[in-house]
């Protein structure tokens, strides 16, 4: 064997073994929870066995000896002679760490005889041997699983056993070794997957790009010639190239599981270290991310998990005292949402103590006490993301070293993502990481506007509505110049895409012959986007935009369509913001998260109409009870029986002027000839409320901050809507206290 070949084999061995050790980490932790699992035992045994066999073959004797000692213990465990308790599991995990250190030494020096970075294989081997004998008869404490290993002996490891895929090189090497007598059933996955160098994948991607370009040129040349046979071939070529392009791009996607698989071990070790009980709950590990993004979220994720165990989840005693289950839960969730990948790291621990955060922030000089006074709860919680902030009462070697949340946020923001924190004091903390779709492949709907195609992330898409002819005129209504459409009885604000894109000559929606409405949802806002035409749905690869266009909030990226042309991907939240439907200032997410937090607390949002009354008083009423929104001429408001009325649909509609009712001054400069009237209908009574202006229709989780003075004020209280204090009108009370009898007889 020539030298380079040896190197290659060793390299392969290192990669394989490191993978095996990672798998061992999670398998062992799982095994500790379920010591009777024959499948897991077989997998753990096999992994040690493979490492032992290959290292022996390659002449790494120290490695082999250690792996051998571990294998001996495992063989007893597998035969049911011993039971895996916490001590043995801990010991085996230490062996894994030592093996890892030795592999690192081999990688650095080519030999396993170097420094083992604090791991002493000899001691470990001695302890392993000790653990073989120290309870030949199972201790009573372990009896509960004593009967299970019996089953384990007979059980065959299933082909679906979670052992890591083994590459061909190692498989062959392993088979050469006489110890191969226990050849296990190879997991089917090993035959269906190969290991590919990432550089090669990147190179392939570039080459496919070149191919696409060449294909496009052939298409344009072929267009000139009139040769049916050529056209057919070009079409086929075009299709194949598109599929190839898509396929190669997908090779770069990896499931988030890749990151998560290391966490059970991390959590287990930390929990043991702090003497806490923590259950790790993971959901959505199959969600795929581009490998470069996966790499970028690795450290922040680990940090958040450490934090949750260290600071979040309380010790067992405290938890029991507080009436919580003794075992804390750390839950990880990953999913696609709104064209982004969302990862949530939540614990059911003590949550963040606002008082402590505030005190610490002042102490560290991050904010002054005066600044603090003006801060909302959310802003105070957000202080934990400031550089130099750490609330850990004692500095542990796990977290709380002052480098922390700010680094997490910086790292996530570097890849264009966001981190938010939902804090429920006493009940836990949830971090929400949103990673942009950069490079991710997403399903998208292609729509047309002014002859160009744009992509809308399918995740934001609710439904499509197509209106023709009279339906357009009949169903589009205007509120203060803004078009709305009644979608199953609810008012859906409409935005013209051409208008959003800044085309000055956009046509009024009601004038169009036909209307194609894409109903979209962005965080908490529902709206309809009017487009020229709707084509098909496609899986698109999101590509980042250059600096010159990146800052435009209306675009989330761009993609290359099947024909090689570039299409912009619209950012649905950006569209909503651009049209003034979301509070522009809060787009950076805090306000949205506040809504989400509030939503989580109460689980419901209300759609309300926000009115301006007088100069700047904001009043809201639930949309549910609004029959219509009208704009009527001042002159049409008449007096009858000492009250204001409006002739409305063949009846007399009693009118309440909200300015008068709420004691606000009519605007001096108000010379408009029309007034907005909210036709309100409740319990068979109708009334028209005259406001100064209809500001907006918003969907929000209302948190009534304080209840205003008793009945007669006509107010239910106030809430913060779109960042402004808004009074909630109790319309029934208004009706009762002003025109009750009139309405009663009128209805």
């Amino acid at each position, binding site marked *: 064997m020539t030298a380079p070949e040896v190197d290659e084999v060793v390299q392969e061995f290192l990669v394989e073994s490191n993978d095996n050790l990672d798998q061992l980490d999670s398998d062992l932790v799982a095994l500790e929870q379920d010591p009777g699992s024959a499948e897991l035992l077989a997998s753990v045994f096999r992994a040690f066995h493979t490492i032992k066999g290959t290292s022996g073959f390659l002449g790494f004797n120290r490695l082999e000896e250690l792996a051998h000692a571990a294998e001996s213990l495992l063989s007893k465990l597998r035969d049911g002679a011993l039971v895996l308790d916490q001590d043995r599991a801990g010991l085996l995990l230490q062996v894994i760490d030592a093996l890892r250190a030795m592999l690192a030494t081999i990688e650095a020096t080519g030999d396993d005889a170097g420094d083992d970075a604090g791991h002493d294989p000899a001691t470990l081997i001695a302890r392993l041997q000790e653990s073989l004998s120290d309870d030949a008869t199972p201790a009573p404490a372990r009896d509960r699983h004593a009967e299970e290993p019996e089953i384990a002996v007979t059980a065959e490891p299933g082909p679906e056993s979670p052992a890591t895929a083994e590459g061909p090189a190692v498989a062959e090497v392993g088979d050469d070794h006489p110890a191969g007598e226990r050849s296990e059933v190879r997991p089917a996955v090993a035959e269906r997957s190969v290991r590919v160098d990432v550089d090669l994948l990147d190179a392939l991607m570039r080459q496919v790009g070149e191919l*696409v370009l060449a294909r496009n040129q052939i298409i344009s040349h072929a267009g000139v010639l009139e040769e049916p046979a050529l056209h057919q071939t070009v079409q086929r070529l075009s299709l194949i190239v598109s599929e190839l392009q898509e396929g190669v791009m997908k090779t770069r996607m990896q499931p988030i599981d890749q990151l998560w698989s290391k966490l059970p071990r991390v959590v287990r070790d930390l929990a043991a270290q702090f003497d806490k009980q923590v259950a790790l709950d993971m959901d959505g590990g199959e969600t795929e991310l581009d490998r470069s993004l996966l790499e970028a979220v690795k450290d922040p994720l680990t940090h958040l998990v450490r934090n949750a165990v260290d600071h979040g989840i309380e010790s067992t005693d405290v938890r029991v005292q507080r009436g919580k289950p003794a075992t804390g839960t750390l839950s990880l969730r990953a999913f696609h949402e709104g064209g982004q990948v969302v990862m949530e790291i939540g614990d059911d621990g003590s949550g963040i103590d606002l008082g402590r955060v505030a005190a610490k922030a002042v102490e560290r000089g991050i904010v002054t006490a005066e600044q603090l006074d003006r801060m909302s709860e959310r802003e105070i919680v957000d202080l934990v993301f400031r550089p130099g902030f750490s609330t850990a009462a004692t500095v542990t070697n796990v977290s709380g070293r002052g480098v922390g949340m700010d680094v997490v946020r910086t790292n996530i923001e570097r890849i264009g993502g966001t981190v938010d924190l939902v804090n429920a004091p006493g009940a836990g903390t949830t971090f929400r990481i949103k990673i942009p779709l950069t490079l991710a492949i997403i399903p998208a709907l292609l729509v047309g506007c002014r002859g160009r195609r744009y992509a809308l992330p399918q995740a934001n898409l609710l439904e499509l509505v197509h209106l023709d002819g009279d339906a357009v005129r009949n169903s589009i209504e205007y509120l203060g110049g803004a078009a709305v459409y009644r979608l199953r009885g609810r008012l859906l604000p409409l935005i013209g895409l051409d208008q959003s*894109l800044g085309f000055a000559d956009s046509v009024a929606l009601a004038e169009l012959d036909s209307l194609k409405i894409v109903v979209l949802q962005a965080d908490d806002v529902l709206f309809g986007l009017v487009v020229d035409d709707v084509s098909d749905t496609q899986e698109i690869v999101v*590509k*980042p*935009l250059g600096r010159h*266009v990146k800052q*435009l909030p209306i675009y989330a990226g*761009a993609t290359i369509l099947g024909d090689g042309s*570039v299409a912009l991907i619209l950012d649905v939240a950006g569209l909503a913001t651009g049209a003034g439907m979301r509070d522009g200032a809060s787009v950076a997410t805090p306000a949205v998260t506040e809504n989400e937090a509030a939503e989580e607390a109460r689980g419901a949002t209300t759609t309300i109409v926000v009115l301006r009354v007088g100069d700047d008083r904001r009043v809201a009423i639930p949309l549910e009870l609004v029959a219509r929104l009208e704009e009527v001429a001042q002159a049409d408001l008449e007096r009858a029986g000492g009250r204001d009325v409006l002739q409305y649909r063949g009846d007399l509609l009693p009118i309440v002027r909200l300015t008068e009712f709420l004691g606000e001054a009519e605007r001096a400069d108000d010379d408009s000839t029309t007034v907005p009237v909210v036709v309100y209908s409740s319990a068979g009574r109708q009334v028209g409320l005259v406001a100064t202006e209809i500001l907006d229709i918003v969907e929000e989780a209302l948190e009534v901050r304080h209840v205003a003075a008793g009945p007669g004020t006509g107010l239910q209280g106030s809430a913060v809507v779109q960042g402004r204090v808004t009074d909630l009108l109790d319309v029934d009370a208004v009706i009762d206290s002003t025109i009750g009898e009139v309405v009663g007889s009128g209805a």
Partner: protein
Amino acid sequence: MAREATATLDMAAGPGAGEGAQFCTFRVADLLVGIDVQRVQEVIRFQEMTPVPLASEEVRGLINLRGQIVTAIDLRHTLGLPGRGEDAEPPMNAVIRCDEEAVSLLVDEAGDVVEPPEQDFEPIPSIVPAQLRALSSGAYKLDGTLLLVLDAERIIRNDPESPAAAAARPTRSHHQ
């Protein structure tokens, strides 16, 4: 003016023209500009592009450069020069790159690579329009024409130095 520029180029591009930096040269309106040869990735003919509504005026669109999406910047606009006529030849794409980010500059014509003698370099006089000064460090006095050196990095970064800062900056050596 444009004709002169091309003529001079041929002469300047001769072998052994000097030991200074090498520049790819481009004609933009009646201006001859040079970009550090190491920053120029490639020059390709006109590409179909996708316009970007709401983007600043200099952004002419996005092109697909072998799977990478590259912003096409109209150098005429960036430099404050008159726009291209309706019936003008379609511009060329000079793709420049730094820090993994590429931008395509739309130029009227691509010239040769020149290596002007360093002593012919002079910082840009303050009488030159600020827009232009912000993206350039100076010019080489070639025979019969001037070669305006553009700072590719600043164009890509989209953060031109303020004209005042550009004026205050000392002459920079382009020796590689």
